């Protein structure tokens, strides 16, 4: 192709508070091309999208749009350049109608401009027809399903005359039929000279739709290839093919009796279904899978936040009802949540208060606070987990991510649990703290805890787990022994189990 590419990125790098999210990404998009972007969770895809849409400023590197270098990209200027992004979770006004949502994006009326409802409706209907959606322009957005809202987003992008359309896992929540519809919309866009950046974990979609594919790994682009030249196996190798950079602490003891057993557990409202597994005391059971595969949802079911409606949960052989977090805690289940800042640590409260929050009843049986006992407990955990803080009275928000995570962990260890669920325990944690947390987890298992480790960091979940389950689409699709190679696990997570083994 001789013409200047529609979008070109050179050596883009971006760091957040010392963590390098992008280390140097090269990327090119031509007009009339569907360019797939592929990479593990945390490989830097979402940061890259935010750079392209102007939400983040890159630290270094150049961006050119249609041959013109762009220095300061802001969300507004990106829009003006014809860059549009369709997110997985559409950002629409739920109380307003579809026609109005589209109009608010596309019209730039002065305050006294007259709203032409019939024109809005016609335009919305026309755009919706172009994406093949059968949605009434008068429907309130809150009454639409997630895929319908996504189609509204695409209609907005079409209406804005976007030249570069980014689709972030657009099919994650679509049915088969809706997917085919979407594919034809994408092909339509391509025919009209639009460049589409297509992000998906579903390899078959990439093969069906994309012209070229760029693989991101650890914040770097590791290669761009025509899809026709690639096989699924080769793509997976590109995604996971890295040196083992870290040494994980080895298992030191044989697992004991079954601590936690799930029999066909499901929860309709959170999309988890038919999960059966066993975790033994002293064992780390890893849960791998893509974002949205239902792992956090399963943890929430086990912790009583969204109670199970089918199947049964057995703790040391006894069936238990887990209707609320209080039930779960009483039965010795602890859950270190994924969203540390919203759920794990109350940032404005002191470290000591945070650590004792789940054991009020045990530590303060008369409800009367015992500051001495609290302080010594906090000091113990600060020492044991090596939390770096000025004092137990320092607010949780004053700590770094890794130390916040240790505080969250301490809160749950203080409950003396028998089953510990860890949800992305090292997300956003720097390397040093990460290996400390790994050692702590291994130590806990050695002390007889049954650990359920949810992690999107593939080397971590491979290195830490004694056994490893893979979730996909809300259910458990495979269980592997320790020592399974990354390729097999990734293939299972992508739903390529039988082919991936080849």
């Amino acid at each position: 192709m001789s013409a200047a590419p529609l979008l070109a990125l050179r050596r883009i790098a971006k760091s957040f508070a010392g963590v390098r999210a992008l280390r140097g990404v090269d990327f090119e998009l031509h007009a009339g091309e569907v360019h797939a972007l592929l990479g593990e969770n945390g490989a830097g895809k979402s940061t890259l999208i935010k750079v392209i849409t102007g939400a983040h400023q890159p630290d270094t590197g150049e961006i050119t749009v249609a041959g013109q270098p762009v220095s300061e990209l802001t969300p507004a200027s990106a829009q003006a350049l014809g860059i549009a992004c369709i997110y997985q979770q559409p950002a629409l006004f739920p109380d307003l109608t579809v026609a109005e949502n589209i109009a608010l994006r596309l019209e730039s009326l002065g305050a006294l401009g007259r709203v032409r409802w019939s024109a809005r409706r016609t335009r919305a209907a026309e755009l919706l027809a172009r994406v093949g959606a059968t949605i009434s322009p008068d429907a309130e957005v809150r009454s639409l399903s997630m895929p319908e809202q996504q189609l509204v987003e695409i209609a907005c992008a079409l209406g804005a005359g976007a030249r570069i359309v980014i689709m972030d896992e657009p099919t994650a929540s679509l049915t088969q039929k809706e997917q085919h519809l979407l594919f034809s919309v994408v092909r339509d866009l391509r025919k009209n000279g639009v460049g589409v950046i297509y992000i998906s974990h579903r390899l078959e979609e990439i093969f069906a739709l994309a012209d070229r594919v760029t693989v991101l790994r650890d914040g770097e682009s590791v290669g761009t290839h025509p899809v026709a030249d690639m096989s699924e196996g080769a793509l997976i190798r590109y995604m996971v093919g890295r040196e083992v950079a870290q040494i994980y602490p080895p298992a030191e003891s044989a697992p004991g009796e079954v601590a936690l057993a799930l029999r066909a557990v499901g929860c309709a409202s959170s999309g988890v279904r038919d999960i059966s597994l066993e975790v033994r005391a002293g064992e780390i059971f890893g849960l791998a899978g893509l974002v949205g595969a239902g792992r956090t949802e399963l943890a929430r079911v086990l912790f009583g936040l969204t109670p199970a409606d089918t199947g049964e949960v057995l703790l040391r052989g006894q069936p238990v009802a887990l209707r609320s977090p209080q039930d779960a805690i009483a039965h010795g289940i602890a859950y270190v949540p994924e969203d540390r800042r919203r759920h794990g640590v109350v940032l404005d409260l002191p470290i000591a208060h945070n650590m004792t929050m789940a054991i009020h009843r045990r530590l303060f049986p008369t409800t009367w606070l015992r500051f001495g006992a609290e302080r010594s407990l906090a000091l113990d955990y600060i020492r044991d987990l090596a939390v770096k803080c000025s004092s137990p009275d320092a607010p949780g928000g004053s700590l770094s991510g890794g130390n916040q995570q240790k505080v969250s962990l301490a809160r749950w260890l203080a409950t003396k649990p028998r089953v510990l669920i860890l949800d992305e325990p090292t997300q956003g944690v720097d390397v040093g703290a990460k290996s400390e947390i790994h050692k702590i987890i291994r130590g806990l298992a050695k002390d007889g805890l049954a650990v359920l480790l949810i992690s999107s960091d593939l080397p971590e979940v491979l290195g830490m787990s004694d056994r490893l389950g893979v979730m996909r689409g809300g259910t458990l699709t495979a269980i592997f022994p320790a020592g399974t190679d990354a390729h097999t696990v990734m293939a299972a997570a992508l739903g390529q189990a039988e082919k991936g083994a080849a």
Partner: protein
Amino acid sequence: MSHVTPAPGNSRPWKARLLSHEMLLLYVLLAEWLFFYFAGTTTNRRGVVVGFGTWDRQFDILRHSCEIGLLALALTPVIITAGIDLSVGSLLGLSAILFGQLWHDAGLPIPLAIAFTLVLGALAGGLNALLITTLRLPPLIVTLGTYSLFRGLAEAITRGSVTYTDFPESFLFFGQERWLGLPTQAWIFFAVAAAVWLLMHRTTFGRSFRAIGLAPEGARYAGLPVGRRVALVYVLAGLIAALAAIIYTARLGQAKADAGTGYELFAITAVVLGGTSIFGGTGSVHGTLLGVAAIAVLKNGLACLPVVMRMNAAEEMSGLLTGALLLLALTAGVLPKMLSKLRPRRHAPAV
């Protein structure tokens, strides 16, 4: 800014302690008091000292601040859980009427009438709690509705005209006499203040209220019974409002449907002035007490100033200044945040 109540063994530097919100408020209160002491004390023609600087006046201030003080104590836990209760003033009126009715019309002995009134107050608070926790309705609009409902019931019961009077001396003792040197109701007020202080600062309840105010979802993830705790603060507010009604009745010797009109405003002002964030999570009971004192001294001190006495406008002046004070306290609360946003942000410390 300090988010933390000092705990024993706390090693906060002395500078931070002297500049905490509560200490600043204490300085303001002292300055205020000294100003009125010098400007509001005079000697009359017979050579007797009158005005602000007399013990009688000081006791009067205490006596008159008990009811609003109680309501402010009731509202402190509510606001710390990031809620609001606009209905406490109306509930004071309704409780006063119910108390009068139980004693006068139903012929109950005073202690029994008091007990029933307190139970009814807690039930009224329970209505707020029920609507707020089970239906997840915003506290603002729920208590706006009960604000109207409670006052309306008081008016309906008394048909706007009945006033209960002629309470026995033994009851009026609580509102009009002194016991052990202080106005009797002050002892009740101090007892409630101590109880609420202990609840907020020395028990797990206070801990959970704070956590709920700061991060309701986080509190749920920590296994705290969020619904039950939130319900408790509204029931407690109803109970304390009913107690305030009893004291109000004993002080004035009469129970009327308009008792406590507008008190909710003064109570909220005292709480916010005392350093409790209207967004929930931070605040203290001693701060609230200082806020109550600041408002009470202002109100009574103004009444002692000769210039205000000539204008006969103590009530209006104190109301005006209270409103202005609330605006000032609110603005002072957010200004540091606004200013720090303007400054370049510092990075989080590396590990």
